[in-house]
């Protein structure tokens, strides 16, 4: 989904703030949440894609104003409520206010992204590929900033579970992923006009061959 989490290339977020000697967990609750996420995903039989998508569905303002482990808290509580493990009203009553993520889209996966996976790679090293201009309402691991851009395959990886299928259809189907290299000029126009480059891993269904 073209959500607030899809941050690559967005403008206006300001400087990177580095905290000196940052602890792994700032407060005890962050560690508790780290462990609870493991328990909730096991209890709800949710894979990583479903958990990521629960975070992606957070209210954008809440997402930007809250810390990383608050994202994990919101995502795991949303999964637990949606799976019927716990009740949203009880969460609300006991906490004095518990914002959950927004509901799943009615049609999260377009048919092209839900198609069965093929294990044999269609592309090889050096293939020129264009990223399809898909904008699914549900979970995807294809960021917006590479859509419709042309790059070169620099590595072919063996099959990995397709995120759209795992998140929304609850099945594991593996297909090859490709590390695709783009020039900065291809991604950003003249502003990117240097010799720098960007490599990103993309599932086969996101790509089409450029002749």
């Amino acid at each position, binding site marked *: 989904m073209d959500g607030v989490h899809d941050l690559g290339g967005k403008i206006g977020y300001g400087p990177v703030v*580095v*905290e000196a000697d940052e*602890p792994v967990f700032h407060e005890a609750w962050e560690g508790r949440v780290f462990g*609870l996420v*493991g328990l909730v995903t096991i209890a709800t039989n949710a894979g990583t894609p479903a958990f990521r998508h629960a975070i992606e569905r957070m209210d954008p303002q809440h997402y930007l104003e809250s810390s990383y482990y608050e994202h994990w808290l919101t995502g795991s509580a949303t999964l*637990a409520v949606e799976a019927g*493990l716990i009740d949203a009203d009880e969460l609300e009553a006991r906490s004095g206010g518990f914002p959950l993520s927004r509901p799943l889209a009615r049609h999260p996966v377009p048919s092209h992204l839900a198609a069965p996976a093929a294990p044999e790679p269609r592309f090889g090293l050096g293939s020129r590929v264009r990223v399809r201009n898909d904008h699914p309402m549900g979970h995807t691991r294809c960021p917006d900033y590479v859509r419709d851009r042309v790059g070169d395959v620099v590595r072919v990886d063996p099959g990995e579970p397709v995120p759209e299928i795992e998140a929304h259809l609850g099945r594991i189907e593996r297909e090859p992923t490709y590390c695709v290299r783009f020039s900065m000029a291809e991604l950003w126009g003249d502003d990117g006009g240097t010799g720098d480059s960007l490599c990103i891993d993309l599932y086969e269904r996101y790509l089409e061959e450029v002749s």
Partner: protein
Amino acid sequence: MSDGHHHPEPMSDVERRVHALETLLAEKGLVNEEFIDDMVQAYAQDIGPMNGARVVAKAWVDPAYRERLLAEDSTPAIGELGFGGAEGAHMIVVANTPEVHNVVVCTLCSCYPWPVLGLPPSWYKSPPYRSRMVREPRVLLAEMGCEVPDDVEIRVWDSSAEARYLVLPERPAGTEGLSEDELAALVSRDSMIGVARL
């Protein structure tokens, strides 16, 4: 339910939410204290950038190891040192050279090679880093104190699928006489993400 006696300090809003989720899950028999404590202890103490530093130092002193490490899949070579597990099923090491400086980001969330670097710092997961590193890496690296010479290509790796990336920094000049342990002590977390040069 009131449990103020467990918390001498008043709970913050987010702590109240964590407590509500945890107690509701506990009432369903779904909270395993040992699991949570083990997870926290592992990543607070045992798994962190000291692991990656050992991988880097070994690659600097052992050419055969370096070659195995820079194979298409680095996971087996990293596993030789005993490192692997969650978020490390497919690790790839990318080597800095006089021509190329590598830097790693995850624009969509927070993907990071846990077995060799531990959990990521807050800035790595923050909107400024995730939005800017793919668009203006040279400007952002300079802002973060990492000056990359103009004739060196910056190669940004956005970890959007299952591969997790670790940067192999160049061995600093003047370290010829150092032992592997002494070399490992020179390797910073930031140099293995690619936001610092040694």
